[in-house]
């Protein structure tokens, strides 16, 4: 046996006798990377949120304080938090409503070639460029764009005008209204909702639906009392994505929407132009905190099995 073969078989033997060595070899590199690069940075961020900015010099004062967190509750900042969480909830609910029929059809009725069509039909939009998707909505919502043209051609502009006159959701045009922001969010995150709901529905045995029907339930009763409860973990799993992604996004509200900010934009501006890193860090902690609660609740509802 050659020299190298002996060495390799000896190492191989030691792996067999002590699997722990192999395990350590496997987990150490990814653990080091994620531990140092990711968790390290996360802690660096957390630490910054306990500092404050000196009002006179504008420099960061490196002393422990909760002052920066107190600033989150100032009316203008607190509005940002409320606005973001309301938007994230609305987007999540709308995504669930639109996603359900697609997921249900794909899971129950799509067979063979259609199954592939549905699969790719969800996967391609999911993986297409985020910015291109946002851009396409800038084209759609523009004053001279396709949506206004459609309303005009159908002589329905008055409906659009009446809708835009509604305070809060309306505005000068769709591209500078909350409705616009909301539409883009729903569009961009919808596939993240469809996939887990579809996965949950695929696990519902058809015999269970037959049993429900045999026992005299109408299809709407079966939907309400059998299918929906079984799909719920999937919906919750999907909502983790839609909620979290909406909460942290700063590009969509910047490109389509009003001038009122969301958490992501606040973080971006405070760390950039304003140079107030402690406040930016404190703002960034809010989504972590909210997602922490959300994930705990979701885990209790068994949503992780549907992921």
């Amino acid at each position, binding site marked *: 046996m050659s020299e190298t073969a002996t060495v390799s078989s000896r190492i191989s033997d030691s792996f067999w006798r002590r699997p722990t060595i192999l395990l350590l070899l496997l987990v150490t590199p990814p653990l080091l990377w994620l531990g140092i690069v990711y968790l390290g*940075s996360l802690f660096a961020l957390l630490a910054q949120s306990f500092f404050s900015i000196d009002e006179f010099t504008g420099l960061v004062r490196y002393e422990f304080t909760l002052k920066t967190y107190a600033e989150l509750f100032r009316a203008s900042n607190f509005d940002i938090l409320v606005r973001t969480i309301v938007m994230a909830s609305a987007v999540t609910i709308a995504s669930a409503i639109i996603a359900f029929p697609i997921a249900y059809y794909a899971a129950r009725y799509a067979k063979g070639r259609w199954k592939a069509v549905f699969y790719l039909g969800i996967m391609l939009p999911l*993986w297409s460029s985020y910015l*291109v998707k946002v851009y396409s909505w800038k*084209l759609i919502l523009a004053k*001279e764009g396709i949506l206004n043209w459609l309303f005009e051609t159908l002589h329905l502009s008055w409906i659009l005008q009446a809708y835009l006159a509604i305070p809060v959701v309306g505005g000068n045009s769709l591209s500078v209204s909350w409705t616009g922001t909301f539409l883009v969010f729903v569009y961009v995150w919808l596939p993240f909702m469809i996939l887990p709901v579809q996965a949950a529905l695929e696990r519902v045995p058809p015999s269970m639906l037959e049993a429900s029907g045999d026992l005299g339930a109408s299809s709407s009763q079966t939907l309400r009392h059998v299918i929906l409860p079984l799909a719920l973990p999937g919906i919750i799993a999907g909502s983790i994505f839609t909620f979290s992604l909406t*909460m*942290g996004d700063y590009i969509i509200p910047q490109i389509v929407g009003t001038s009122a900010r969301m958490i992501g934009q606040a973080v971006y501006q405070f760390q950039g132009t304003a140079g107030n890193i402690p406040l930016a860090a404190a703002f960034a902690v809010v989504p972590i905190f909210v*997602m922490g609660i959300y994930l705990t609740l979701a885990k209790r509802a068994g949503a992780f099995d549907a992921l």
Partner: protein
Amino acid sequence: MHSKASLGLKITATCGLLFLHLPILLIFVYAFTTEDKSYQWPPPGFTLEWFGVTWNRPDVWEALGLSLRVAAISTVIAMVLGTLCAAAVARFKFFGRETISLLVILPIALPGIITGISLRSAFNIADIPFSFWTIVLGHATFCIVVVYNNAVARFRRTSGSLVEASMDLGATYFQTLRFVIMPNIATALLAGGMLAFALSFDEVIVTTFTAGQQQTLPIWMLEELVRPRQRPVTNVVALLVVLVTFIPILAAYYLTRGTETVAGQGK
């Protein structure tokens, strides 16, 4: 139960799919429009002129080159780390196993802006200047999860007795790795790699925090979205980006088809 879908379900499902696809199709039309000052619909005319203009733009080429290099290197790092992690989680039961799978998913479960600002403040504290490598560092971190997801699913389906049989027949660990494990997981790895590449190629939120003066293609696009300079060129670039990202996704689909590994699940 009926074995056929009701009309209402068919209509809502179809409308949902159309809602997902029509906006992207619009990009295909706008790339050929002759209008260069606004987003006018319907386009007044069609032309191929802007493809030529885009071809001669050095800034587009530079951004594209940077994006491809970042995506390639991040993918390689993510493939190594993701596979190691998947092998450990799928093959062993150990203390902290759940924590590791959570740790891998975290960079994608938390909003990108948090990953971004965390990395940025860490770079500031450690006095690391922004460079090509700071971008790669961020990208590799959130790409690990995609490779991990694909690999872990395949490892779980590959029976452990295959490995044992190979060793019983006298193969060393390295031979088993080369002739038994690798052929079994190769397509899943390739699919994971493709998706990681697509993810990195498209990423913008983390990148804005970890890039200094460099412009990746998504950052270039973001600039154009916020402050449009030459709309037709943006239209053409948008079309090209769609086409470029479709290739790895379709490839990943065909690689994992029929194996129940849902390649793109949980982007």
